[in-house]
């Protein structure tokens, strides 16, 4: 299991060092600093073995987190734990920075004592931890016996992510369907790979221990219902609206065995914001934009670039924050740009022309052309054209996912599903949206 956990700043100074196992010594702290941080190279592997000691490391802004072990640990678990550790710290004091870590080092040691015991991860839900580890020192001195046992039963219990006795005057929930659409297109406009990775983020402000059931236009569910309904009609019409989900993963509150057997998503949500599910689709994706590049080399010192973007969604909808990034060769000496819409600029430091458009409606087209002048070089190596990448935000889900319902049942308290105020929002963003040129 994890033998020790260290946090360093970018200089390699250790900010937190907690050793859990006897086989890890203080010298491990220095070994990592010297071999990885001070090496100042690109990280060639997130797992580094130095003198039969394995270091698992991640970096958040300029802070390094390293978990150390000499045993055959579950590697996936160690990384998941490091991410979780970051989540917990963020939940307590915001951004992970040297200043924040130094300011909260006592708190971090307390957390590390609680969420990692002898190198075994323990309950690390920040919601539960906050009931007894606080920034104002630990609660616990003045609690009653009932309060204490409530804490411990929650930390160890089946529903470790939610405490009892939550009350809201207004029961309300927000659902955000956030998708990132990824595309790799050949210069000829052939889709090399495309997929949507989506998340459903829920913010719940519900009293008691509400039992929730979430439904979406999952093809398998709709087909099943269509069949049991028996009418061919419903099957057909829903066929268009339903989507094929390749795979989905759930927050730990979701009853997985129920999903496996009935494909229904039922759970008792944590209080506040959490990620209910993640999913991935590859079929019938609506690609909001199409990029058509045209690059022509005019002699050895000049390039002509023309890029057309076409929006491909309902004209009534508006895409926002559109940005097209056209890479330029390293030996570029000057660029002239003409664009019909938005603003375009050559950014020498980034070796790219950045073209920004604030808003664009569906079924429109826009174009940029640029003349790139090059310095003659002796460099034999040809310029390798990086792909043209694009960023945008659209108010729909490119996968076609629709939330059908989210039902709330709380039998003990007297509020019903109808009393809950529900909000749903769809946001589609570009992930890695690239067209080769």
């Amino acid at each position, binding site marked *: 299991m994890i033998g020790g956990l260290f946090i360093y700043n970018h200089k390699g*100074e250790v900010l*937190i*060092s907690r050793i859990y*196992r006897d086989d890890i010594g203080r010298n491990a*702290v220095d070994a990592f600093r010297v071999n990885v941080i001070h090496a100042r190279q*690109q990280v*060639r*592997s*997130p*797992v580094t*073995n130095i003198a039969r000691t*394995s270091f698992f490391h*991640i970096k958040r802004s300029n802070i390094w987190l390293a978990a150390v072990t*000499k*045993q*055959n*640990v*579950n*590697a*996936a*678990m160690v*990384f*998941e*734990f*490091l*991410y979780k550790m970051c989540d917990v710290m963020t939940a307590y004091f915001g951004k992970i920075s040297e*200043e924040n870590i130094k*300011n909260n*080092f*006592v708190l971090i*040691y*307390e957390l590390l*004592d609680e969420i990692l*015991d002898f190198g*075994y991860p*323990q309950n*690390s839900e920040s919601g539960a931890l906050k009931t007894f580890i606080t920034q104002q*020192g*630990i609660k*616990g001195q003045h609690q009653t016996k009932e309060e204490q046992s409530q*804490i*411990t*039963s929650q*930390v*160890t*219990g*089946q529903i470790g992510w939610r405490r009892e006795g939550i009350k809201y005057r207004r029961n309300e929930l927000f659902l955000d369907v956030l998708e990132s659409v990824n595309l*790799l297109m050949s210069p000829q406009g052939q889709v*090399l790979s495309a997929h949507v990775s989506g998340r459903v983020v829920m913010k719940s402000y519900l009293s008691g221990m509400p039992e929730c059931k979430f439904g979406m236009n999952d093809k398998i569910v709709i087909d099943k219902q269509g069949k049991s309904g028996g009418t061919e009609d419903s099957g057909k019409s829903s066929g268009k609206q339903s989507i094929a989900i*390749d*795979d*989905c993963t759930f927050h730990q509150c979701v*009853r997985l*065995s129920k*999903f496996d057997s009935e494909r229904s998503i039922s759970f008792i949500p944590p209080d506040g914001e959490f990620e209910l599910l993640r999913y991935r689709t590859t079929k019938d994706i609506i690609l909001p934009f199409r990029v058509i590049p045209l690059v022509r080399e005019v002699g050895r010192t000049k390039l002509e670039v023309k890029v057309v973007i076409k929006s491909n969604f309902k004209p009534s909808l508006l895409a926002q924050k559109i940005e097209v990034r056209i890479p330029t060769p390293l030996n570029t000496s000057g660029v002239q740009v003409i664009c019909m819409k938005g603003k375009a600029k050559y950014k020498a430091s980034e070796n790219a022309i950045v073209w920004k458009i604030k808003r664009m409606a569906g079924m429109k087209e826009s174009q940029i052309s640029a003349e790139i002048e090059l310095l003659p070089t002796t460099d*034999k190596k*040809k310029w*390798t054209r*990086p792909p043209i990448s694009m960023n945008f935000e659209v108010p729909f889900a490119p996968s076609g996912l629709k939330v059908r319902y989210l039902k709330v049942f709380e039998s003990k308290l007297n509020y019903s599903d109808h009393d809950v105020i529900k909000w749903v929002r769809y946001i589609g963003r570009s992930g*890695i949206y690239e067209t080769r040129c």
Partner: protein
Amino acid sequence: MTDSKYFTTTKKGEIFELKAELNSDKKEKKKEAVKKVIASMTVGKDVSALFPDVVNCMQTDNLELKKLVYLYLMNYAKSQPDMAIMAVNTFVKDCEDPNPLIRALAVRTMGCIRVDKITEYLCEPLRKCLKDEDPYVRKTAAVCVAKLHDINAQLVEDQGFLDTLKDLISDSNPMVVANAVAALSEIAESHPNSNLLDLNPQTINKLLTALNECTEWGQIFILDCLANYTPRDDRESQSICERVTPRLSHANSAVVLSAVKVLMKFMEMLPKDLDYYGTLLKKLAPPLVTLLSAEPELQYVALRNINLIVQKRPEILKHEMKVFFVKYNDPIYVKLEKLDIMIRLASQANIAQVLAELKEYATEVDVDFVRKAVRAIGRCAIKVEQSAERCVSTLLDLIQTKVNYVVQEAIVVIKDIFRKYPNKYESVIATLCENLDSLDEPEARAAMIWIVGEYAERIDNADELLESFLEGFHDESTQVQLQLLTAIVKLFLKKPTETQELVQQVLSLATQDSDNPDLRDRGYIYWRLLSTDPVAAKEVVLAEKPLISEETDLIEPTLLEELICHIGTLASVYHKPPSAFVEGSRGVQHKRLPARAGSGESTDSPDVSQSVGGATEAAPTVIPSQGDLLGDLLNLDLAPPAAGPTVPPSMQLGAMDLLGGGLDSLLGGDIGGSPAMGAGLGSTPAVMPTSLGAPPVVGGGLGDLFDLGGSVGMPAGAYVPPKSVWLPAMKAKGLEISGTFARRSGVIQMELSLTNKAMSVMTDFAIQFNRNSFGLAPAGPLQVLTPLSPNQTIEVSLPLSTSGPVMKMEPLNNLQE
């Protein structure tokens, strides 16, 4: 509020000041001082001098302060054991505190203080805490047993904590169950043969129930533990699989990978024609693909594992090629791994796409990545015959870029393509020759020289080309020198008239001016061949070469099986068995996949035939892993010695598993049948240590040591081949075994000489035979006068009977050790 100020001070006399503050009457000041001490401790300053002052602050009702003091104690108690005793009273008192959080804190911290005197006091509180009414205390106590075991294993056994821990598996609280499972698994690892984790259908059922209820981490502990279980039959296997599959949808990648491990392992037992088997295969693909959308570090872990899974069961991901396409912004370690998997998945169906991608990658920036991409194009050519032509033309395009390392890499792979498809693409040789001057890496130079030598008759100026290399012969690396020697000899045999001088020159360079024995030997062999019988020389040197096989970098099957059992762990990331990087006895137990129902031993037989007939060839690859294995056997000597020289049944089972994983199929020597031996040859002896105290395993790679083909017609019983070394001492940590088979008064005997070449005494020998073609089995126990002291040799003769279980080996007289 801001604690960062504690990091700043580095004044002189700081320790002195801190001392004063720690002894202050004011609580706030005390707390501040302890914080400063912890901050200094973190940055690596030695603040152990403050020990008594800090421990004095322990008696407090302020929980925050108490935790800080505990943290200090855990760090320095070992260096100040006598003073640490001062803390014991507070711990014991805290273990009785009405607040469960404080009880748990005390027992948790006490377990981390590795001072004998404190551990003695820990037993009573720990016993109480294991039965505490509060689950939070129980789950902490469960882990504490593992801590205590790490400090003093005997104490834990004597105090009966292991039984209490086992009881906790039936606890009502899922988190207690999970921690108990984790603790037991860890303890069991250091006692490989103890039946500590007594997994039976009832406990498995409890674990599967807890699986649905515990935290994500607990689920990982439980799944990793489940993976060690071997179901009784395919029905049980299926029912466990059915209850594990829902975990594939968990958001935590480690839960998913551990579930994949269980499924991959238990699938082995399912009959392939079962519907469920197909369903399961289909269910595995999507979660594996989803892992690729995790953070890059996890993607890396996932990709390393997928690499194993693809080798074991290529059908799972065969349609998912596209997801392994490299993204421009992927970190380099993800890119390299994706590339590896792409090649493994390449097939006729997707080769066009793959090639187009590889061509893109070959123009990227990172040198390692580009090289690998170029090499991948070559591997595609070798793997998918239909694509070979396109691959070659792509490689030629890349050579035209004149980017130095691309050209060199391309030449290396083209050489392999020639070896796979002879007489097909030699037209490109001219283009290759143009780039001769730019090659500066030994591998590329050697490849180019090989090509020139092999096709000397088609290259007009072959002699000139090779001569140009000869000038700096002594500055070349061995690889190039050897290649050059061979190439010139080939050239000479093809064009003897013009190149006589050249060949003499190279032979004298190799034999007279070189210090390298390999080079000299090769030189002499050629020289003698050429001078005694040029026709024979031609037959040898210009013999038709065997075609190379398509996949050269596959993981050796037994290692692959073991790694599949370690999915998700560090072993699967390194692609090495745990024994290769874990010190001591922990985790070195070899795991293996269960056998499919009804197929018996046949699961590991495919590779038997592979090693037959080429013992010498197999040796280089085989021996290192054997070394590991033996090392592992040795490492087990921490286990208490067993009673007598006879093997207790349970022990034997464990031992067989250990061996079975690797040795069974790793080693195979082909021996000629000897009539003198009657049925005696071809046995598969494997000497096993009873107590695992000594590692006498008969070594392998025997080649044709036993080749007694010439002895046909010898009178039965008269001839006994001389003893030969079966297991060199180097490979068995000091035990050398040589032996032979003989027939004395009608009884087949195995005669062994055991020599202890190690520094320490060896005891408790035993022997075990694997099932073999002739049913050979020991007729009595191995009689070894124990102990065997250093540098002592003893002769043992073991009567054999032919009444043991018979398993047909292919070929019949295949000897495996």
